[in-house]
């Protein structure tokens, strides 16, 4: 398998997610698009980890470990981010009774 296949898939998913963040007005779907982007980055990390030059050592570990560690940490940060973000959405919904992102403009400068 060429490395390019994984990178191309990751790039496509990242672009799809970023477009979704811009065009969707439902904050839950926007969060899903952010998850899509994070997973695209995870795929890219794993692809680079698998195809990295093998004598390379990072933190006395082989280079393919560094990519997997990055993926683990991205997953953990994503879990924390989703928990807090969905809590914020719930709080906004309780306060304003609507969650349309185009109408939540009270923080506009």
């Amino acid at each position, binding site marked *: *398998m*060429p*490395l*390019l*296949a*994984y990178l*191309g898939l990751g*790039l*496509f*998913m990242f*672009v*799809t997610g970023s*477009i*979704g963040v*811009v*065009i*969707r007005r*439902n904050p*839950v*779907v926007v*969060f*899903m*698009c952010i*998850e*899509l982007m994070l*997973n695209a980055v*995870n*795929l890219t990390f*794993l692809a680079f*980890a*698998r195809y*990295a030059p*093998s004598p390379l050592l990072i*933190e006395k*570990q082989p280079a*393919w*470990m560094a990519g*997997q*560690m990055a*993926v*683990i*940490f991205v*997953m953990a*940060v*994503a*879990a924390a*981010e*989703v*928990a*807090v973000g*969905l*809590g*914020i*959405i*719930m*709080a906004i*919904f309780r306060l304003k009774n609507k*969650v*349309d992102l*185009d109408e939540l403009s009270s923080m506009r400068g």
Partner: protein
Amino acid sequence: MDMNQVHIPQVSPNLVIVSLFSLIAIVTGIGVVAFNNPIRSMLSLVANFFTLAFIYFSMGAEMMGIQQIVVYTGAIMVLFLFVIMLLNLSTDSLTMTRKFDVKPFLAVPVGLGVFTLIASQILLPFKDIRTPSAPDATAASVGWGSPQALGRALFTGYVWPFEIISLLLMVGIVGAILLARRRVEA
């Protein structure tokens, strides 16, 4: 790799599997953005995460594939489902009746443009890399993505980042509880 050697594309089982799963991942990824109903977007995202997990398995990153299924589709997507259910956001139909919005019509050309731009600038130098260097699992030794190798790295060289991540999750839990709590008038 010998640069003069003409590369003849050979169809391996791995290539077929990865192409098939990539196709599903692309279709479901578009589905996440394109579906009007958030439930359908969410199910599309679940399918996407499952296909990604299978791609990880095919790369030899078994532990990452297991984590992808358990953490993402098992925990995070259930959280999304709960919030959709609690907010009762059945469709975007209320928002769609409002003023005309030009953004969805620009999405496809802008997305293709960004994809082509980044691919042409960044991806091309990697086009000659075809053979993975990380060791696959054999009968004698575990592979590069096995739970054993991963656990050894996580608890020796990466133990401090691991502890900091546990702290971050703790803060996340406390923050989520604080945000979701109903305000009690004292």
